[in-house]
């Protein structure tokens, strides 16, 4: 099929034909096209429907500011909603569909809303839909939601991958147009590390759209040569397809590199890369965006920005119509007429709102000075325009130019405020821009090409010299000076016809007027009340125009009206790109213990604990329910011997001459005099008196201690200890290092644990009860000389040890222990059995050490030493923390032993109803005890320690359970602790 609007030349490869479909129709384009240029080449003028009124809309721009031509691109899980056709590089097989209409694009049933538009003005929904009350959620809101929204998500998992990366440079240049290239050429020549990034796949910016000559050759040729020159410099990195979307603190910039072309060819490759760029200086050369003028029915397909018409003509060899008119308030609009005329496209008329002499004389083109377009006709495409002088002109395309707005967004990302310039009738960067940033070219309001090039060159020189690089390269490109004159012209009185300001969100000049009338006078209020500038184009073509319209309404200067705040991202960024690789299992890294492989062979069921994968239980053949395994592991451990991997506990080696003193300050209980070869339980508080962590600390020699922490708190406790040392007691001779990973550590528990270990420990080490009593600690060797550490400590309440060897031997030691344990019918137990046994023994753990409980609450007040300063002592004395009606930890057992107690149940007295007032406490941990053969729980209840024997209700309204429980001692098994000491 022929592309009827295609002309010759252009910066595309007309020998490489590409096929694509739009709404199912097969079309052709060329390599180097964007989707929008290919659609226009095929004379597709109606490409979408507007957000609110479902008005027919056509392509309006040729860049990332596009408000109308947003589509669903791709199929199935690959479908990208709301994709701007103007920045989508055409590829073979591209599938595009218009969005946000019911029925075919040319006949959208939702267009009914356009008829009702008088009802649906700005903020109408705040004033109605209130009666009857129930209708909002049931009727009104669903209706609104279904008609709102734009593109569709596939609702399938995003099949593409994304990556992230870090790059560093001296000078980051954003935008590879005339000024950006000039800056890069000089900065590059100085030897500085330069990154030049541009959102377009073809560097050159407007030079690719215009016919200006630079250094005697076509501008786009000069751009091409410059890019080649930069490529040859080892210290310059070119990043096309890369949008710098945000300016963050201290010279950090966020940028997204589009690599779809690569990921389409190879699904393994990332679709986009999220670059974090660290730079010392930044030169912003992001150019400018053209704006429209608000006049009656200015939204019909065929009405587009004048600069875009030139882009399609010069860069993509596409004429946007057969009979084109121009409407402008500035000199730049006239170039469109000239270029079209030069390429033999019929220009019907030039309408200039100014009293001005013709800017360019063009043979046989009707010139209408000091006139406006007041209305247009044409249902699905423009057919004619009506002028303020009454004339009607038949035309199929109207190229509008209301002037150019500098793309200064990134200068405002640190909340800098732009300044209004009367010269260009737009905002330019203000005083405060991010540190290290300078602005050059039209982004800086310098609309004259020759000056923009000079400015880029100077900023490049300045930046390089500022960093101490020598700059010899002084000549810069020359081009004829073309002036840019403009006189402000925002909107045209267009009677009953709607004049559109924000095309995508359907905000008209009237909406803005109504908002002002209702007292919304701040630009932020207007934005929020009318939704102006909140569409996917972020108001790139609308905002400044709206500010102009507002200022007219309110009789204020544009300066006083001000702008809304620009925030990242500059243009929308796929959430997947921000997530990068952090998906599914890769969300966090994974930690494996030395016995992981062995446990896996034993079919362990694992659970993630602070990134560690820990064995929960080890199912045996025939065990169908997790508790079968756990009960067996507990019974076997308590009756003979069990082994558990406790490598994940935090381990900290502490060395130095002042360690005792230090430990005495960070632990609540006394630590000044721990004998060598002994372990002591330690209770660590936060400064606010709440329990932070608990563990044991052993003294291996005069100046050498080793501390254990809980798995979950290992990092925080180490950080806390470093704080205490460096910030509070810096002169103590204390040296800490984590040895968590250095040692594999296993708990061996149960009446036969000693007999088992005697087969592992080398015989020269006597570990009999006499030689190595409860709480003993020693450095020994095992299995024929392998160094190890042995601690006689118990979490289960049984005779128990923890044995540690260098991690390299961890796998091997676990296997040896299991083999040596055969004769005792040794069992491996996991975290669930561990949990059961610690609850049977009444040891507080995670659910009890929840940061809301003090040592007194946990029944450990007795351990607190009143004779010394320590972290948490003083604030622990506050009146409310000392009250005896606080919730205190106790044990619970069901009055009827068949009853199930549930963790999370709240406690109320028998005679009371379950209400907040009657809430007495809650059950924190709860398990079935295979030893006691009924459920037991730990929990907190007011004055609990004095209420042993009381019966209360454990109520779980969520699960509808309500059982009588008795308050008992938390020590269910061996309360006297005899088993530990045998």
């Amino acid at each position, binding site marked *: 099929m022929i592309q009827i609007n295609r002309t010759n030349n252009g910066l595309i490869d007309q020998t490489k034909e590409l096929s694509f479909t739009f709404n199912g129709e097969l079309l052709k384009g060329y390599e180097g096209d964007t989707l929008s240029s290919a659609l226009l080449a095929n004379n597709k003028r109606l490409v979408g429907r507007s957000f609110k009124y479902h008005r027919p809309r056509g392509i309006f721009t040729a860049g990332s500011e596009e408000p109308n031509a947003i589509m669903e691109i791709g199929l199935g899980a690959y479908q990208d909603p709301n994709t701007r056709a103007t920045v989508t590089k055409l590829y073979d097989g591209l599938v595009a569909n218009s969005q946000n209409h019911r029925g075919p694009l040319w006949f959208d049933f939702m267009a009914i809303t356009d008829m009702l538009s008088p009802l649906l003005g700005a903020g109408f929904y705040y004033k109605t839909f209130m009666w009857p009350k129930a209708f909002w959620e049931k009727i009104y809101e669903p209706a609104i939601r279904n008609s709102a929204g734009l593109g569709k998500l596939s609702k399938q998992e995003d099949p593409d991958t994304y990556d992230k990366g870090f790059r560093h440079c001296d000078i980051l240049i954003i935008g590879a147009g005339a000024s950006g290239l000039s800056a890069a050429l000089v900065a590059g020549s100085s030897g500085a590390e330069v990154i030049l990034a541009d959102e377009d796949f073809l560097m050159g910016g407007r030079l690719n759209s215009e016919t200006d000559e630079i250094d005697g050759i076509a501008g786009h040729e000069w751009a091409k040569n410059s890019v080649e020159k930069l490529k040859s410099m080892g210290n310059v990195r070119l990043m096309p397809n890369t949008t710098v979307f945000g300016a963050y603190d201290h010279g950090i910039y966020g940028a997204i590199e589009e690599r779809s072309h690569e990921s389409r060819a190879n699904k393994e490759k990332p679709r986009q890369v999220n670059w974090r760029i660290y730079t010392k200086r930044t030169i912003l050369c992001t150019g400018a965006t053209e704006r429209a003028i608000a006049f009656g029915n200015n939204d019909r397909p065929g009405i587009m920005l004048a600069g875009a018409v030139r882009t399609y003509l010069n860069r993509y060899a596409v004429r946007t119509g057969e009979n084109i008119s121009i409407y402008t308030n500035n000199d730049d609009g006239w170039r469109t007429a000239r270029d079209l005329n030069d390429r033999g496209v019929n220009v019907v008329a030039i309408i200039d709102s100014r009293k001005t002499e013709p800017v360019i004389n063009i043979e046989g083109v009707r010139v209408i000075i000091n006139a406006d377009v007041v209305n247009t006709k044409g249902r699905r495409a423009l057919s004619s325009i009506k002028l303020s002088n009454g004339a009607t002109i038949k035309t199929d395309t109207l190229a509008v130019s209301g002037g150019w707005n500098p793309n200064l967004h990134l200068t405002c990302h640190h909340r800098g405020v732009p300044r209004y310039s009367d010269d260009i009738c737009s905002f330019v960067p203000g005083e405060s821009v991010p540190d290290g940033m300078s602005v050059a070219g039209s982004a800086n309001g310098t609309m004259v090409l020759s000056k923009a090039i000079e400015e880029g060159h100077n900023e490049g020189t300045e930046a390089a010299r500022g960093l101490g690089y020598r700059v010899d390269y002084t000549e810069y490109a020359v081009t004829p000076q073309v002036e840019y004159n403009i006189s402000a012209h925002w909107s045209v009185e267009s009677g009953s016809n709607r004049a559109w300001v924000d095309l995508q969100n359907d905000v008209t000049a009237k909406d803005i007027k109504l908002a002002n009338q209702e007292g919304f006078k701040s630009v932020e209020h207007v934005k929020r009340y009318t939704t102006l500038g909140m569409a996917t184009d972020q108001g790139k073509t609308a905002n400044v125009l709206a500010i102009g319209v507002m200022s007219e309404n309110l009789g204020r200067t544009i300066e006083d009206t001000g702008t809304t705040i620009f925030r990242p991202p500059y243009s929308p960024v796929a959430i997947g790109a921000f997530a990068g690789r952090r998906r599914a299992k890769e969300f966090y890294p994974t930690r494996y213990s030395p016995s992981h492989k062995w446990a896996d062979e034993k079919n362990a069921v694992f659970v993630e604990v602070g990134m560690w994968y820990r064995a929960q239980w080890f199912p045996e053949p025939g065990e169908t329910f997790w508790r079968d395994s756990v009960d067996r592991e507990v019974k076997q451990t308590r009756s003979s011997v069990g082994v558990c991997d406790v490598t994940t506990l935090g381990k900290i080696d502490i060395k*130095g001459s002042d360690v005792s003193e230090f430990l005495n300050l960070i632990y609540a209980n006394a630590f000044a005099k721990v004998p060598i070869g002994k372990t002591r339980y330690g209770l660590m508080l936060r400064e606010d008196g709440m329990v932070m962590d608990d563990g044991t600390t052993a003294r291996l020699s005069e100046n050498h201690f080793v501390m254990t922490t809980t798995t979950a708190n290992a990092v925080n406790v180490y950080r806390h200890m470093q704080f205490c040392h460096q910030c509070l007691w810096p002169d103590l001779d204390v*040296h800490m290092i984590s040895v968590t990973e250095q040692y594999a550590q296993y708990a061996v528990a149960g009446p036969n644990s000693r007999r088992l270990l005697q087969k592992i420990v080398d015989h020269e080490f006597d570990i009999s009860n006499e030689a190595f009593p409860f709480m003993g600690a020693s450095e020994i060797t095992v299995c024929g000389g*392998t160094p190890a550490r042995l601690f006689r400590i118990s979490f289960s309440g049984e005779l128990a040890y923890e044995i540690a060897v260098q991690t390299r*031997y961890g796998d091997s030691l676990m296997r040896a222990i299991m083999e040596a344990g055969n004769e005792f019918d040794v069992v491996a137990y996991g975290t669930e059995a561990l949990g059961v046994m610690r609850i049977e023994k009444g040891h507080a753990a995670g659910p009890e050490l929840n940061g809301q409980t003090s040592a007194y609450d946990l029944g450990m007040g007795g351990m607190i030493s009143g004779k010394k300063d320590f972290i948490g002592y003083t604030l622990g004395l506050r009146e409310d923390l000392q009250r005896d009606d606080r919730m205190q930890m106790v044990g619970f057992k069901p009055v009827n032993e068949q009853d199930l107690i549930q963790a999370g149940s709240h406690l109320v007295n028998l005679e009371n109803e379950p209400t907040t007032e009657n809430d007495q406490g809650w059950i924190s941990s709860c398990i079935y005890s295979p030893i006691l053969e009924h459920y037991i729980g730990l929990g907190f209840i007011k004055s609990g320690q004095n209420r042993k024997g009381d019966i209360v209700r454990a109520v779980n309204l969520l699960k509808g359970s309500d059982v009588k429980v008795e308050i008992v001692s938390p020590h269910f098994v061996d309360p006297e602790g005899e088993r530990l000491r045998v």
Partner: protein
Amino acid sequence: MSNYSLTKISALEGARHDFDGLSLTEIVDQSLVMMAMPRNKTDKITKALNSSCGLSIPIIGQSGRSDDDSITLWRLQKDQLMVYFPYANDDADNYLKNKFKAPAYYTDQSDTWAMINVSGEESVNVLERICPLNLDLRTFTVGTVSRTVMEHIGTIIYREGRDSFVILTMRSFGISMMHALEVSAKNVL
């Protein structure tokens, strides 16, 4: 004597992955010992290191080598030295204690870390996907050593040569780090 004997396993069981212009190899039989320098002992330690094997204490972020090049000192912390050297036995800390005779606190860290060598001309291009540091040769010179975080994993990175890096992560993270490096390689190469 016990009837059992133990066999050792390295963190990644000697894993190696080769790509076009890059190889990832676990480093085995290297030891790493942390020397904590007590207050006011720095001079004594400096002397002892020098007389024992011609080592001098590098500035923080840099490394130094012994006369015979066998022992490398990494200075990552004010009052600490990391000693990186080929040694396969279980008593690396005592070995150094006797060799250096320097009055420091020695702690064996050999099993604390998984050690991966990243080498090949693509090393920097692959590492820039996960490493926030500027690895430009002029900034991160040969012999530079640093701690940082890659893919949420605490990491030590040491530049052995122009295109050769040593990456250390806590041993339990070793598999995740190797995976991260492989993904980078696949994405880039």
